[in-house]
């Protein structure tokens, strides 16, 4: 459970057997292979599913603030899983769980996660040769790499994306703070990321909370409807109480 929580804001997934996924020249092929594997193994919401369509729209709002290569096509898949999680798989492909849609406190926080994952691609984290430092985690049959420096870069870029798209730029820090208070094993890592944002003056809230769009509210309602009757080991309510 705690691993899943931390993965909410960790970034980069690689096909476990791949050997060139860290190199830019192989990114497109590796991303396509990852997407194919996820489609055959993971319970994904269909592309026409209203929750997936909403997430794609939310990402589109973030994309509109980008220039040049950032305006490329982005693809977001939503996996059915009660545990909140998200990761980028290179070449504009991002996967998140519907547990994340249920977990976030507001739409800006969900946008912050999407922006963070987009930032991994925009910052060229998939183009760096090798993967020195950091830690690997397995997610399904994929290997996910966590590197503190890359995470801080992605957090910083995400705040910029949030501001450009009119979301609360403080949502990135507020979500990290909550994760830090909910996951003792990763508290230090997450707190360091909050402190990095604070040092750069990027942790302050810029808008009044409670401006969730009807699309967000409907997506969350649909997810919670699907969650009815499903027992979860993940206690979202208490996780948020700890963050207040």
């Amino acid at each position, binding site marked *: 459970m705690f691993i899943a929580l931390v993965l909410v804001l960790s970034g980069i997934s690689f*096909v476990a057997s791949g050997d060139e996924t860290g190199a830019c020249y192989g990114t497109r092929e590796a991303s396509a292979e990852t997407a194919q594997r996820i489609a*055959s*193994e*993971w*319970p994904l919401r269909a592309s026409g599913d209203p929750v997936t369509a909403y997430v794609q729209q939310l990402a589109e709002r973030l994309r509109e603030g980008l220039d040049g290569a950032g305006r490329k096509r982005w693809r977001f898949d939503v996996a*059915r899983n009660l545990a909140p999680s998200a990761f980028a798989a290179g070449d504009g492909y991002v996967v998140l769980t519907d547990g994340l849609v249920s977990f976030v406190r507001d739409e800006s926080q969900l946008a912050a996660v999407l922006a963070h994952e987009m930032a991994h691609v925009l910052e060229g984290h998939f183009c760096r040769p090798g993967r020195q430092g950091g830690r690997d985690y397995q*997610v399904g049959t994929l290997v996910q790499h966590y590197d503190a420096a890359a995470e801080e870069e992605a957090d910083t870029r995400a705040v910029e994306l949030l501001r450009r798209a009119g979301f609360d730029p403080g949502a990135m820090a507020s979500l990290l703070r909550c994760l830090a208070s909910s996951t003792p094993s990763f508290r230090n890592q997450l707190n360091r990321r909050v402190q990095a944002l604070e040092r750069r003056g990027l942790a302050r809230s810029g808008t009044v909370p409670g401006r969730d769009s009807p699309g967000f509210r409907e997506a969350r309602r649909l997810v919670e409807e699907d969650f009815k009757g*499903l027992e979860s*080991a993940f206690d979202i309510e208490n996780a948020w109480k700890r963050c207040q």
Partner: protein
Amino acid sequence: MGEEGQMQALGAGLGAAVGCGIGALVTRDARGCAAGAAIGGAIAFTAVKINQYQAKQVRSSKADARLYGLAKPVNSPQVKIRKGTSNPTAIKPGQAVTITTDYSLMLPASTSDTKVSESWALKKDGKVLYTLPAQVNERTPGGWSTSAAIDVPKNASPGTYVVEHKVKVGSSYDTDESTFVVKS
């Protein structure tokens, strides 16, 4: 009509009457009454129960991996519905429909089996009429086919019914939909 069929029909009749009363009270017009009756009609489905529940492993873990290109063991239990079906797809009121869920269960290499929850919900016009009790059983990894027969009441209203198939293991769950039509 068997004893159980009579019970169901009676339940539907009472449901429709009570529903009409509720509708009329709430909205004081004929449309309200119709809506109330529809709610009452749905009550008949509370008599639905699972008959002939069956589950069998239809693919070994290796066969499932070959068929769907699964590369290596997962690190936490994962489920994916391959197909949900209702058969036959068109019936008359009072007949039975067999609902079947075919799914893949993936488990970590160190886990030989785990508890899986399988459930179905019956919907019409976007509303849940009835949720069949979840079946929770130990399952080994591979492909599973689980099915149940549901008796559609003799007074079920005509139209398209949607069956929501749902399977859950750990935090992973999946859903699929199939449909059948009740003809007048």
